[in-house]
């Protein structure tokens, strides 16, 4: 793997700031801007602190960057952005985009996105990408000048549109099926996890009521009073502990969400292959029919039905000159078609080769990351259990002194 950007430059999204401005329709809007800081890594090894470059970007600019990358590198599984709107929330979490916790998690997600792009062997070399990090003014114009929107295949947008591909690469068909299943299972997991979090919150918080009633009860007791009172305090601690626990768990949910969105990116690559294959097959079909028409004209036999053929039968045959002209046009078209088919074939094979390479890279990354995510989730659960044991052991000691 060549030296990717991530090895040369330290990238952080360090701050988020609320801004107000005027949008395209000259209406006032509030949005959040994120500070991207970059610092060269090399000079740090010399013991010096390298200067930090920084610029501000908002979410829509990140979106523009990603769209550009998706269109320009259709064979790459492009890293996804953190969600646009808060989804899979459990009741205490705010679904408001301006909520500071949401903004904070988004800041982390955007940093993660940049790190992913910067450590990708292909994407990190892109100039638009580099200027996103270094050139605040005029970047948008630069992106639009590439004319990438023209390259964008509108058919790709309709990711669910079906068209019949006769001979797709089986690996891509399986992979598309996998990405569909992955999206479905992670969505389900995130939904249930949110409900689990909700319920767990309820269990912990109700225990807080013990604190109050033990305190009230201790007031009428002599020997039992102290033990009850201090146990009640531990119940309050227990009830309060759930807030931090669930906040930590949100990071796990975010890790899952990243791969939920990654599944979409994976699907897009498979779709691109299908589209290319479809175009190839259509082109081949078109060529075949043209060749057939050619043959029919030359030999005078009509094998295929054509309206032109019928009308010429009804209204009289063509002159030999007309037929000659037609043949010539067809032969030119056939030659063009064969060349096009050749290049399309080549394109298709190249695509399959480079896409599959990136897919293999992605698979390894996915397995590594998700394993790490599961480990950190287990560690969180272990910490929660240990806290629970601690609190109840403390309470038990208070009760024993009653």
């Amino acid at each position, binding site marked *: 793997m060549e030296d990717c950007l991530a090895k040369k430059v330290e990238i952080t999204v360090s701050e988020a700031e609320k801004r107000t401005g005027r949008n395209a329709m000259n209406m006032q809007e509030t949005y959040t801007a994120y500070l991207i800081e970059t610092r060269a890594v090399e000079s740090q090894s010399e013991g010096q602190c390298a200067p930090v470059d920084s610029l501000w970007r908002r979410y829509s600019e990140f979106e523009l960057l990603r769209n550009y990358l998706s269109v320009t590198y259709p064979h790459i599984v492009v890293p996804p952005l953190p969600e646009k709107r808060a989804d899979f929330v459990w009741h205490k979490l705010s679904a408001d985009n301006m909520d500071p916790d949401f903004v904070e998690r988004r800041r982390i997600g955007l940093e993660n996105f940049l790190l992913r792009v910067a450590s990708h062997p292909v994407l990190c070399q892109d100039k638009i990408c580099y200027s996103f990090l270094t050139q605040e003014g005029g970047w948008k114009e630069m992106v639009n000048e590439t004319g990438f929107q023209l390259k964008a295949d509108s058919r790709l947008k309709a990711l669910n549109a079906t068209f019949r591909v006769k001979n797709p690469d089986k690996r891509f068909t399986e992979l598309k099926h996998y990405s569909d299943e992955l999206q479905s299972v992670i969505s389900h997991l995130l939904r249930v996890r949110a409900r689990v979090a909700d*319920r767990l919150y309820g269990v912990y918080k*109700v225990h807080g009521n013990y604190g109050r009633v033990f305190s009230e009860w201790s007031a009428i007791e002599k020997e039992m009073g102290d033990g009850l009172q201090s146990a009640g305090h531990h119940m309050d601690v227990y009830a309060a502990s759930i807030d931090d626990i669930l906040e930590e768990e949100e990071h796990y949910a975010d890790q899952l969400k990243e791969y939920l969105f990654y599944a979409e990116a994976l699907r897009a690559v498979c779709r691109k292959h299908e589209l290319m294959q479809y175009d190839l097959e259509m082109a081949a079909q078109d060529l075949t029919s043209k060749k057939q028409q050619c043959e029919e004209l030359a030999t005078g036999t009509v094998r295929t039905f054509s309206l032109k053929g019928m009308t010429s039968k009804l209204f009289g045959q063509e002159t030999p000159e007309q037929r000659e002209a037609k043949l010539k046009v067809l032969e030119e078209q056939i030659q063009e078609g064969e060349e096009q088919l050749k290049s399309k074939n080549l394109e298709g094979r190249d695509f399959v080769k480079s896409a599959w390479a990136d897919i293999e890279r992605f698979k390894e990354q996915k397995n590594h990351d998700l394993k790490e995510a599961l480990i950190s989730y287990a560690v969180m659960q272990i910490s929660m259990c240990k806290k629970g044991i601690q609190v109840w*052991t403390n309470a038990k000691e208070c*009760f024993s002194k009653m």
Partner: protein
Amino acid sequence: QDLSLPNGTPVDTSSPASSSSLLNRLQLDDDLDAETRDLFVTVDDPKKHVCTMETYITYRVTTKTTRAEFDLPEYSVRRRYQDFDWLRNKLEESQPTHLIPPLPEKFVVKGVVDRFSEEFVETRRKALDKFLKRITDHPVLSFNEHFNVFLTAKDLNAYKKQGMALLSKMGESVKYVTGGYKLRSRPLEFAAIGEYLDTFSLKLGTIDRIAQRIIKEQLEYLVELREYGPVYSTWGALEVELSEPLEGVSACIGNCCTALEELSEDMTEDFLPVLREYILYSESMKNVLKKRDQVQAEYEAKLEAVALKKEERPKVPTDVEKCQDRVECFNADLKADMERWQNNKRQDFRQLLMGMADKNIQYYEKCLTAWESIIPLLQDKPETK
């Protein structure tokens, strides 16, 4: 085999602190009764009886004793709830100046609770056992003649039919028949007890509601967890390298579900019934306080009546004297019982709350074990294929 202290309360051997609590309890008991234990009663072995008219449960009541009041050193009889209820009524009648322990609730809403389920029968058995042990512990009630018959008679029904005409050997005979006398003011110490009982039962009621709410929330949490775990399995089936880790997480969550279920069951079966028992206890104690008020009111009324008649009788008439005796006896018995009750209450709640803490600790320990055991599975590097 459950270990029990000589007074019958079971020992919690699950925690290392139990030996010190054992010692504590023995010392307290020695303070309570100067005499050594010479009466042991246990309730166990519930059995279902199906007859043409009804179906009911009987429990085995075993007695071991060296007391002279008993002809034999050992007895084993079978009793049903009705019989316990009869005993309690008899005790209230014949020992109105004492606090009689409560019975578990008589009526159960049919259809909502299964009267013959293992859990219900076991909960009831424990409460009945506690009931008899509390009587056994009492220096006056344990010598009650009806109690003796309850523990020993082969045919209790025949004895029941003999009715109230039986004169006891102890000397207390007729019920305290009191007219509708109104007490002007309760003496300070009994007023304090009354107030205490009011607040106490109020707080217990609140705790009961909180505990029920927690159980409800835990069960709802359990429902979600039961859906959560299997999703990891479904995902695992999609993957190759991640298949084992995901299956591991799924199984882990399953284990936590089991642990949670056990916690909720324990709280329902062991914690809530004892709370309710004490609420019933408070209620019956308040009634005894009222009876005491009645007795005092009667005495005060009769005394006033005599004072109004002035010189006719220089001596205080005997029936007024008897009233005075009654009041003083009642007050003395009640005070002694209150002290005993307070001490027992402290021990009972200490044990109850420590038990609750223990059950929660065990729940978290089970979950901890489950999650710690899958860490190596998650960190495992698969062999390169």
